[in-house]
């Protein structure tokens, strides 16, 4: 149920994002989803790609600080209140969302949201019990 996400530390200076995307592009890696969190001094680029291991190694070779995190991809019904239902469920169980962002592709007409939880395993259990659909990594990487 878990999806591998790679995170990259970037300083706020021009050309860093272009550099990362160039490295990934030349290595034949396709970006499936991304989110950029930024502060005035630095940012964290979070990516889901079709080949996480290769992306990690080419970025490290190029001197970037990279780490891998497990996140959860949840299918969200594409209708008003769809996301709210998921978040309320998590709130009742006191599970915190560290951050979340939307996946580029849809899955069977539903939106896909990537979540990073403080307690990943517990979140997966809770969502399963409530019959929310989560996507396997392999399916997501190649969607």
């Amino acid at each position, binding site marked *: 149920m878990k999806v591998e*996400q790679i*995170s990259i*530390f*970037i*300083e706020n200076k021009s050309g860093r994002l272009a550099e990362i995307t160039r490295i990934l592009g030349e290595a034949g890696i396709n970006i499936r989803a991304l989110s950029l*969190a930024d*502060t005035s*001094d*630095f940012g*964290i680029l*979070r990516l889901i790609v079709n080949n996480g291991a290769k992306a990690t190694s080419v970025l490290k070779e190029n*001197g*970037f*600080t*990279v*780490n891998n*995190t497990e996140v959860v991809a949840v299918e969200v019904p594409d209708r008003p209140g769809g996301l709210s239902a998921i978040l309320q469920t998590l709130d009742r169980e006191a599970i915190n969302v*560290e*951050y979340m962002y939307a996946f580029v592709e849809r899955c069977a007409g539903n939106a896909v949201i990537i979540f*990073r939880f403080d307690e990943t395993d517990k979140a997966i259990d809770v969502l399963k019990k409530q019959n929310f659909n989560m996507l396997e990594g392999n399916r997501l990487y190649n969607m």
Partner: protein
Amino acid sequence: MFFNEEFETLPRPALEALQLKRLQSTLERVYNNVPFYKATFDAAGIKPAIVSSLEDLQKLPFTTKQDMRDSYPYGLFAAPMDEIVRIHASSGTTGKPTVVGYTQKDISIWSELMARSFVAAGAHKGDIIHNAYGYGLFTGGLGAHYGAELLGASVIPISGGNTKRQIMIMQDFGSTVLTCTPSYSLFMAEEAQAEGIDFKNLKLRVGIFGAEPWSESMRAEIERKLNLSAIDIYGLSEIMGPGVAIECIEAKRGLHIWEDHFIPEIINPETGERLPEGERGELVITTITKQGIPLIRYRTRDITSLTYEPCICGRSHARITRMSGRSDDMLIIRGVNVFPSQIEAILVGIEGIEPHYMLIVDRVGTLDTLTVQVEVSEQLFSDEIKVLQALSRRVEKEIKDMLGVTCTAKLVEPKTIQRSEGKAKRVIDNRNL
């Protein structure tokens, strides 16, 4: 273990008698041979003969780096040029370098003091000494080289730079002793790690590090990463070069200064007054056996303190404490005195921070600002902003708590802070004062 047991353990009364005799003859020599000293002594109304005890040394004027620059290049030489067999010069960060000359006897004393220093550090005949100090005008390379040869060790005169090759040679040649700057040793460790080489599989046993101030916490870091015993060595080209003072491996507490050749004093850098034993101030050294360029009360600008307490190693020579900075690279930020080495000690104490940092001082309006750049290692990196922000705040808070100065910590990408293969540059001061 000693190299010259008789002189290294000379009882203090005999040592001081020898110092006085050598001081008196040095004063006669400079007064008669160096116009600069005749002029300054005469201006102060002093004749060399007034020095009848070591206490009288205080009556003499100081010699400064500026005096050396004013006498550029050979003005302070006390021996004729046809007796000078070697010339070195220190890196002149501002203006002309300072030039020093050595007679044959100076070279042999320097070699002996460097050999004594090697032995004090735990090296011996049979060691393979990997000498990564720079060879050239800088005294580090040749100074250590001659001492190592006199000791009877095998010297690898590799000099600085080309780090990958250094590591290969250390591995293949079985180097047992490493000599270089402390920051370069850590750079080597980083490179070795990148190459997948573990220092535990190398034969290095002792590292002798100097030419820049470093901290106790950096020692711990070096010892862990390079798997050797790290020894602090002190020297400066004006006085001789490396080997003026060294820690003994038995105590690793303070550096023995070879008092049969140098007389150390600690002064208040503001007033020039001599400070009592144990107090921190500027180190002043008088050379008492040098022929090429003897210096009287030379202000080193290095901040340390002096102790005459007996040492467990048996050497009778006084010890200076680890240099805590230089009176001229001390930063004054909004009135607070800050030495880069103090900030370094704090950073190394924070788990996961690499000892690569840069201090940037600016003036915004009338206010000084200090920015501390710290590299984000893989160990530190988190995919959550709040974790990284907490880390910056921790650096800021610890510096504020320990030093009383407000700073901004800025996380930067790994390996973006300039690495040095010689003396590390730790400060960029953009203030135009």
